[in-house]
């Protein structure tokens, strides 16, 4: 898929360019509200990834790749679980069990819990985002 599915259709290209940041914004919303409302890291990652897929479909693969280079994707893929695991270890260092969020560590337990859960969700989101985009690029002819 060397070029856009839609040829040089101006409307599609423009709309896609306009919509993509909003999709990403929505993804971030889902990400940050994961611990209080439906949603979370995984869904957010998929939503943000879909914005890149949209760009690829509308603008063509090369341009989409230009915005999300392999050199960025590769560290992102493995940093997500790393964040997850390290936060678990942080809980141990702070005197709790692995992944025990509700511990008093500089802040009251409720605050720490919110911060740590959000961090874990961010980690998951990053990985899912990078993985899905990578799979998409691989299938589209990387």
């Amino acid at each position, binding site marked *: 898929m060397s070029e856009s599915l839609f040829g040089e259709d101006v409307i599609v290209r423009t709309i896609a360019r306009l919509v993509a940041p909003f999709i990403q914004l929505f993804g971030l919303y889902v990400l940050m509200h994961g611990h209080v409302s439906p949603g979370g890291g995984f869904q957010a990652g998929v939503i943000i*990834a879909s914005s890149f897929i949209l760009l690829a479909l509308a603008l063509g693969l090369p341009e989409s790749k230009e915005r999300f280079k392999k050199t960025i994707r590769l560290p992102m893929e493995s940093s997500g679980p790393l964040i997850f695991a390290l936060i678990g270890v942080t809980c141990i260092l702070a005197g709790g069990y692995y992944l025990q969020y509700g511990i008093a560590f500089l802040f009251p337990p409720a605050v720490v819990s919110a911060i740590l859960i959000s961090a874990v969700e961010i980690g998951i989101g990053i990985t899912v985002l990078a993985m899905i985009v990578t799979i998409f690029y691989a299938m589209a002819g990387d």
Partner: protein
Amino acid sequence: MIWGPDIFILAILVVLAIAAVISRDLLVATVIFSGYSLLMAVAYVQLNSPDVGFTEAAVGAGVTTVLFILTIARTARMEEDGS
């Protein structure tokens, strides 16, 4: 619990599933499957699991469809007879 919409959704789900199976044009089948996933997402929300519904909408209806279409683009669009 409201029975009407549930049964309506389930009925359409069955129809879509059958349509996806009998369609010989794989692209059509994929698009039907995408609609099926969307309705599944609604059904999940109805069953009080918005999280799963969310995921189904994003992954099942969105990413999976794109990946299917890419696969079809790389192979053949029409299901072949017999061999």
